[in-house]
């Protein structure tokens, strides 16, 4: 059962969509339900000892797992299929932006320039364009990445960011209450928390901008503070 589960997890991890306990029970463990935790523990040990991968439960309530690489970075080429590497590039840029902006950035349903209406007040509704300098899509505009336009490398970028990255748990979107049109905020998802760190991301920003990480004092102290 253990080796079947190991294979199951490795294949399920291909798309980087987190694995649910329910799927594991249904497909592999089946009648051995009572031994579930023992089987999972042993599978985790095998994954670590044989593949150097860590089985991490990112949602203890709903029992959802991901595989994370536990080996130190090797200097060689990172083997990837398809557009994996480019997507990771975009993701890194987004995660950096979110962190440097205070761990949370806003976006709204419609495009960057929207009409902001508050109907709840008895006054005549105003309409204004929220600037949010630094909102995620405004930032990506600067990199020639547009939500409404098909991108040469990423295709439907909005779908990639709001669906794929979110489903993979790299990003998390939360609806801000009582906003109309609905507004969301983007934060790091649990997979991002496990696969990278604020420190790594700050180092990336520092490298790109040719500055020392300590240049951004509060981000630096936040990055150092994480246990």
């Amino acid at each position, binding site marked *: 059962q253990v080796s079947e589960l190991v294979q199951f997890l490795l294949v399920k991890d291909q798309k980087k969509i987190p694995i649910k306990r329910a799927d594991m029970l249904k497909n592999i463990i089946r009648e051995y339900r009572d031994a579930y935790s023992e089987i999972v523990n042993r599978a985790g040990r095998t994954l670590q000892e044989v593949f150097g991968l860590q089985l991490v439960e990112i949602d203890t309530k709903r029992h959802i797992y991901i595989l*994370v690489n536990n080996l130190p*970075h090797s200097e060689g080429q990172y083997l990837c299929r398809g557009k994996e590497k480019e997507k*990771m590039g975009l*993701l890194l840029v987004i995660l950096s932006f979110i962190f440097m902006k205070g761990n949370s950035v806003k976006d709204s349903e419609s495009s960057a320039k929207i009409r902001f209406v508050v109907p709840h007040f008895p006054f005549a509704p105003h309409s204004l364009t929220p600037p949010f300098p630094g909102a995620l899509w405004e930032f990506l505009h600067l990199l020639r990445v547009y939500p409404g336009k098909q991108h040469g490398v990423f295709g439907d970028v909005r779908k990639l960011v709001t669906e794929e990255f979110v489903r993979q748990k790299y990003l998390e979107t939360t609806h801000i209450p009582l906003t109309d049109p609905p507004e969301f905020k983007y934060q790091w998802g649990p997979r991002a928390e496990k*696969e990278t760190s604020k420190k790594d991301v700050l180092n990336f920003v520092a490298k790109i901008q040719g500055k020392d990480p300590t240049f951004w004092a509060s981000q630096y102290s936040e990055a150092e503070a994480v246990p």
Partner: protein
Amino acid sequence: ENRESMLNSKSNRLTEALEEANRLFDGVCRAREAALDAQFLVIASNIGKEKANELHSEMSAFDSTAFAEDLLTFMGINRTEETDDSEDVPGVFLPSDAWQTMGEEAPKYFRRAPTFHYMMGSFKSEPPVPKQRIERQKKASRGKAEQAMPAQLKKMEESHQEATEKEVERILRILQTHFENDPNTPISFFDFVIDPNSFARTVENMFHVSFLIKDGLAKIKLDEDELPIIEPLKPSGGGEEDSRAGARNQVVVSLDQKEWQ
């Protein structure tokens, strides 16, 4: 209502709005108005949280525009002096492998599990069906072959026996002929059986001679030099006693290729 101006850290508009809401609340007497007031509080607290956030990030101001420009540089953007068309940003051109360049750098910052793929791909589900058919055919043909075999074998064995018998008879005749020609000179056993050209033949000859001896058609004696000699016997009735008594001697002769040479 005017979210942006409230967010401005320099403005006190949020505080003013809160104070006004407080005043208004005193005049509230209907449930609907109370609900409105509650909604206002939610919005106000959200704005308050955002203001606090902005304060925090302003401590170490992050210039996202500068970051974007540096990223473009990293990705290999071409900034030329000429202006080809006045529509777009003059002379700025992002190469097609821009994101590939980023893709080379990015994995270093992630502890991402390499995706697992079978090297040889998976088995296709078709082959099993033809395989069964082939197996059945094989079984059928094998049955026939087996049936054919026993018949052949029988034939072979028969011929084998015949061959041996013929050989033995032949050798006996040779022996008898030799003895008739010269009855007083013993025939050396070795001279008789050894074929100077073939070791295998020699062994065969010895084998055939042994039949003669077994059947009492020849006998081997030791001469004065202790060397074996062979002579034919006449199978006669009187020989029965002899065969009972004396013919049960056995001789083991060992001969290897070296000795034969």
